Structures are given as C-alpha cells and as structure tokens.
C-alpha cells in the first residue's frame, strides 16, 4: 500500500520540490497543505501516515494536538528547519519528531531523509514505549512500598504480612496490586 504523506509548508517552492521527489521515487501518495486551516480538513480525508512540517509555521501546535490525540497510532513527523538551528533538532527528536529536512535540500535528498525519518521514528517509538512501561512499573513499585509501610505501622505487622494481605485482597477483588496499594495510600491521606 502506498504510504500517504502530507506536506505542510507555506514555502510552495520547497513543498513542490519535496512532492516531485517523492512522486518520482514512486510508492508515495503526496498532498500539500499550505497551512493549518486547510490542514484540518485534509487530515480528515487524507489520513496521512507521515507528516512533513515547516517549523516556522504556527501549525506546529495543531500537529501537537494531533500527536496527543493519536497516541495509540503516532505518526512520524519530519520538520523543515533552518540550517543554523541545530539544537532544535534534538528537542524535536526528544518530542517525537523523527528527522529534519534542512533547508536547501535537493530533490534526491528527500527520499533518504524520509527513510531515516521513518526508521528513527520506529526506533524512538519503541524506546518510548519501553520507557513508559518502565516508568509505570517503577511507579507501581513505589506505591506498593508506601502502602506496605502504612499497613505495617497501622497493624503492627511485618513487611511480609503486609505484602501478603495486599496480595490476597488484590486476588479476591480481582484488581491489580497497585490499585489496592493506591486505595490504601489515598485512604491513609484522607485519615491524616
């Protein structure tokens, strides 16, 4: 299936270079939006797989919402940026943007950049998923530890007994340990 690409750029010359390059290579469906007003309508109909965006457009905020709204199915985003603006690249990569097309690009550079963008996006997306999973595990462990402490103090029991109690409750109520722990912590805070 052809990859759908949406180019958002007010610089029509640059946009047409990108479009031509992608059309020449083949295998891409390319649409160009000059700015956000049209972008909203286009996003509905075009459902792009990749967005290519001009960083000097306010449209970035619209795309930001899109990124948040489609967290389950994030799209790689490629941004145009001025050559002098190297560190913006790091910021945007951190933020989920996969690659940059530096100004003054030539037709034959577009394809490799896009390939890099998609590859990097996939790698980044995998990393982010891992990080999110690790984060929530850590958060769960922390809350369980806190709840254990509360139970030990309130009931005068050992750490093992406290853990056991929570585990049994979780099994009986068919809920996660972290949920039981959270209830204990919340209740303890309310009773303070």
């Amino acid at each position, binding site marked *: 299936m052809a990859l759908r690409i949406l180019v958002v750029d007010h610089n029509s010359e640059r946009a047409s270079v990108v479009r031509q390059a992608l059309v020449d290579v083949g295998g891409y469906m390319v649409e160009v939006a000059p700015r956000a007003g049209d972008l909203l309508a286009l996003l509905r109909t075009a459902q792009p797989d990749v967005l290519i965006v001009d960083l000097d457009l306010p449209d970035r905020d619209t795309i*930001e919402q899109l990124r948040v709204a489609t967290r389950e199915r994030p799209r790689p985003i490629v941004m145009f940026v001025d050559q002098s603006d190297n560190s913006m690249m790091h*910021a945007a990569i951190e933020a989920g943007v996969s690659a940059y097309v530096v100004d003054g690009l030539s037709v034959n550079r577009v394809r490799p950049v896009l390939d890099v963008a998609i590859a990097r996006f996939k790698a980044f997306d995998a990393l982010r998923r891992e990080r999110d999973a690790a984060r929530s595990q850590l958060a769960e462990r922390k809350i369980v530890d806190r709840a254990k402490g509360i139970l030990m103090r309130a009931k005068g029991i050992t750490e093992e007994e406290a853990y056991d109690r929570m585990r049994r409750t979780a099994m009986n109520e068919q809920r996660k340990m972290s949920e039981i722990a959270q209830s204990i912590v919340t209740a303890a805070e309310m009773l303070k």
Partner: protein
Amino acid sequence: MNGDLTPVRAGFIPLIDAAALIVAADRGFAAEEGLRLELVREVSWANVRDRLMLGQFDAAHILAPLAIAAALGSDYTKVEMAAPLALGLNGNAVVVSTGLYRAISDAAPGDLNDPAETGLALSRVIAARRKQGAEPLVFGMVFPFSSHNYQLRYWMAAAGIDPDRDVQLVVLPPPYVADALAKGQLNGFCVGAPWASVAVAQGVGHILHFGVDLIARCPEKVLATRSNWAAANAPTLQRLVRACARAAAWCAAQENRTELAQILSAPERLGIEPQTIRQILDGRLMIAPNGETRADARFFVLDGWAALRPDPRHALWLYAQMVRWRQIEHSPAAVMGAAGVYRPDLFDAALTTRNDASAADGIGAFAGPLFTAGDVAGYLAAVARSA
C-alpha cells in the same frame, strides 16, 4: 555601560499579555536593570516550550498550564520550571460564527451575557443538530494545555455538554481562527487578545463572552525559566522580574496607553494596528460586526501585585483542570510539582525590598496593588477591588 549589560534571551508569542516583556525590552526597563533583553518572536507554543527546555531561551512568555505540563513531564520530557512572574490575568474571549450566534440567541431564553444561559442554548443547538444528523460543531482553541481549552470546556460542561463527545475541539493557531470561521471550518473558538477582535472586525464572528464571564480571575501566561537557570542566575532573574514588573506598572498607567499601543503594534512585536490594541487595553471591545461594543475593565488585567505575583492557587486550579480533562493523572507528587512551578518567593525576592525606592512602583507597599502614579483614580479603584 552597554558593554556591561547581561544578555538575556526570551521568547514570546505575539499576544497582548506579552506587553510587560516587550515594554521591558523596548522602553529601557531591562537596560535600567543592567540587562540586554533580546526578544525572539515565535510562532507556536510547542516551539516556545522546546526552546525554553533546551536553553535556547533563558526565559519565555508561555501558557501557564504548558509550563506546568513541562514541569510534570506529563507529555514530553520533564524539565523543572520556575515562574517568578504572572504576566497578567484574563484577556480571552469566546467567539462564535454569525450563524451560531443567531442559533444561540434564538435558543437562549434569557440574558446572553450569562454563560449559564448561552451554555444551555448551545446544548439545545447541539441537540437539534444531532436530530438533523448534522456534523458536530467545531470549536477552536490555541493549545491542549491552555486556559482557552479549559474555559471552553468549563462553559460547556456546566451546561451538560461533553466537550469530548458532543463537539469537536481542535487546536488552531490564533492568526488562522478568523479565516477558519469565515470558511466554516470552525463554528467558534476561544482565543487571547487581539485575535477575537480581528474576527469581529472582519465581520465573521460575534464575541459571545469575555473570558471574565466564565472565570473572573483566569491565570494566563507566565514568565517562565528553567528552575536550574533560575538557581544559577538568581541576580539576573531578579533584575528580569523587576524590569518586567516595572514595565507592567508602566503599561497599566492610563496615560501611557497610546504609547503602549504604538510599541506593541510594531511589526516585529504584535504587528496589529494600534487602534485595535488600544481598545483591548481600555477593555472596550467591538463584539458584533454591526459595531456594538462592550466594556469591562477586567477584560485584561495587568496592573497590581495580585495580577503579577504568581499565586500557587492558580497553578493548582490549572492542574485540577488537567486532571479533570484526563490530561494527567492525579497524584500527591503532581500536586506538589504543579504548585511548585509558581514561585512567589522569587517574585518577592526581586520586588519586596520594602521601603526601597527600587520597588516596582517606587513605593513598595507590603500588600495591595502597585501604585500607579500616572493613574491615581485607577490605583484607588484597584485598592477597592482588592479590599
């Protein structure tokens, strides 16, 4: 002495509440504090956030909830933020297309200035459209983490409208909203000054509500820095806060409004004609294409301690909106983190050298609004309001 000025780089978005920062840079307040304040006009909030996080900006005019979201790392990288100064309160307006305005006024039994009435009317319009099988109404706002988003949601939810199901909320940059309204891509929006006025002047929309109708003292933008920058550059930050607070006091003085409108209208600042800016400063806005105006002195509030000193209650209210609309999960740590972005201690460190002639207004009263020598009546009114 020019060689001795400390450089500070700050980003801003062309909006009326960047006034204190712009005037600090353009009218000598920063230089008086020994700073060379370089302002960079940005186009999107995401750019402002990234550049502030990265250190390309030392400080920025930024949406208060966005600074809080950045500090909590709720969406992006977590970077601790410090907001030593609020850049005023209020300034937003809810605008609807001429068509939706007609539908709302037809469906509103009572006072159109009452958001409970207009919300009820909107819910009726939505129900009627659903019956006809029409597409949901589309409302624009400027960023997911913005008071504009929360004001619209607050208004709708109070009337039983589910903003995630009954309407479509989209992010649209302010310079585009009037055009999108004209093209029918939007049915309404909530936006900061002066962009509501622009839509009304183009004859495509009505101002249905001033932001103050919905939230009387709505936190808006703050001056934010990275916490580690604030810690490492404490004297510079104090001078920056002082310069902006003195600039804000200057902006608030009625006698300076003509000059202020001129300064802000410059192409590299807001790039909007001075008359439009003047109307906003006066709190007297054209609300309908037929030229009808409405005045409210609270439309945009920049004067007084209470509007400038960061109030952690504001940070917590914004945090509560984020939790309410499922942008972040509630936790005790997040509560602390959100409140901790607002730093009245840094404001006080910069400004409450009591009995000191270098205090923001030359008086340095321990409480109450800043004294505005050029507007004694305005000062007395502010005293009455804050009493």
